[in-house]
């Protein structure tokens, strides 16, 4: 149930934001996608998740694979409480509505909330939750259909270091429990160190580094060095960006 991206090209306003991107993520593996803002990371996730269409190339995964995505700012439905947010796809999609009774849906929601360490908040609305709790509810909603491909867009953005660690642990735990192929877009080195198996780095729509976490952190790739050391000087021209 792996995910493969082949020769992906996306053009916005005559500018290639993704240029011939290819990679593969195996079952139970997490790929980290790093790069400066505007390098095409979020566009890549949007194409994999089906929000945007590719101009060229292929996204290959089994037909029956559910894809889930956790958004940068959670994107919980603010007019629904936690229970309704998590049960949303089960209630609104016909295949699940026909498959599960109300009691079964209750059970599934409880189970998913347990998986992200939250219980007893079913009646709360997203605005009543902290940033970290919103992220975990968003995770619970994302995994409610037992997806085999999970995409995370900056899962620790705006969170304090301790909450970030908790979130990173859940990314690892969910991957193991669901044996899913995961893609994590992040700027955080801590997330890369704790939650990622392999890394690609994007710059101006191109993959400029591909390797494991060790190679990213202490390898010889100039792009990786500049990113890890957070220096202005290097092959990536920040001023130009």
């Amino acid at each position: 149930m792996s995910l493969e991206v082949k020769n992906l090209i996306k053009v916005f306003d005559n500018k290639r934001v993704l240029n011939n991107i290819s990679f593969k993520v195996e079952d139970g593996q997490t790929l980290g996608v790093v790069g400066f803002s505007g390098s095409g990371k979020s566009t890549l996730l949007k194409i994999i998740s089906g929000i945007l269409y590719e101009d060229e190339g292929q996204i290959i995964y089994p037909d029956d694979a559910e894809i889930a995505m956790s958004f940068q700012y959670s994107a919980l439905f603010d007019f629904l409480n936690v229970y309704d947010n998590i049960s949303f796809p089960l209630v609104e999609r016909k295949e699940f509505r026909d498959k599960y009774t109300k009691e079964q849906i209750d059970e599934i929601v409880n189970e998913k909330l347990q998986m992200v360490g939250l219980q007893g908040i079913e009646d709360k609305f997203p605005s009543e939750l902290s940033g970290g709790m919103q992220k975990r509810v968003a995770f619970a909603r994302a995994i409610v259909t037992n997806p085999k491909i999970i995409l995370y867009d900056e899962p620790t953005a705006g969170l304090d270091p301790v909450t970030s660690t908790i979130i990173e642990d859940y990314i690892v735990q969910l991957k193991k429990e669901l044996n899913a192929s995961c893609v994590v877009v992040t700027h955080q080195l801590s997330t890369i160190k704790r939650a990622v198996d392999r890394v690609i780095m994007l710059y101006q729509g191109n993959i400029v580094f591909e390797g494991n976490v060790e190679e990213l952190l202490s390898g010889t790739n100039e792009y990786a060095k500049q990113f890890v050391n957070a220096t202005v000087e290097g092959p990536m021209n920040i001023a130009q960006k």
Partner: protein
Amino acid sequence: MFELEKTLTYRAFLLLLGLSREFLITLGNIGRDFSHVLAYILSLKINVRETIEQAKRFAFDSLPISLTIVGMTSAIIAMQLAPELAKQGAADYTGMLSAIVMIRELAVVMSGFAIISMVGSSFASEIASMSVTQQINAMKVLKVDPVEYLIVPRFAAGVLFMPVVFVVAATFGLFCAGLVSHYCADLSILNYITSLWRGLVVKDIMIAILKSSFFGGTIALISCSMGFSTRGGAKEVGIATTKAVVWSFLAIAIWDFIFASIFYL
């Protein structure tokens, strides 16, 4: 040396071109959303639970303001019309004229305005806010079509429940007009009701119900479509809401003209 780019005419032309482009894009978005909505409705894929939720907003949330606007307007018209008609010895026509004005135009247009301000604006800002906070994208990833979940129920509620608002508002308006005529022109309630019956024509009522249904659908569609195509942040949410209100007012005026031309010309 003459530089075309610096001339006022050239700049005005560019501005006009930009506005026309924006107009056509908005029209295209509304058309695209309407075709999707129509496809769902024709295949009877209507989320009944959500439609009932939205119907409550259409029928109840807008009712107080609809009743106030229609009631006050009809009272003001009766206040000015009834004494004049009484002076001419035609007080008995007050009810009939009120019925014609109320049923053919006032009740439906005024309640349309109330619904634009109460319901349409909230549809637009709600969906625009969902759009800029990625909630619409989240819905797509969860494989729930946002058109089916958000627009179709609102459109259906508009088509089905705007006529309800119209009927209640028109009845209330005629009641207010009768009351004011009684106090301002000494017209007996019985005379008013007798005159009213002469002005109540089944054809007019049916046309008004049809018209209100068109108004309801149009307001819901335009408001949702404006919200749906919003990108950016808080500023764009505000712009989308304003655009939804302005476009809805324009659409109602155009529909009203079309209906009048077809049925009363």
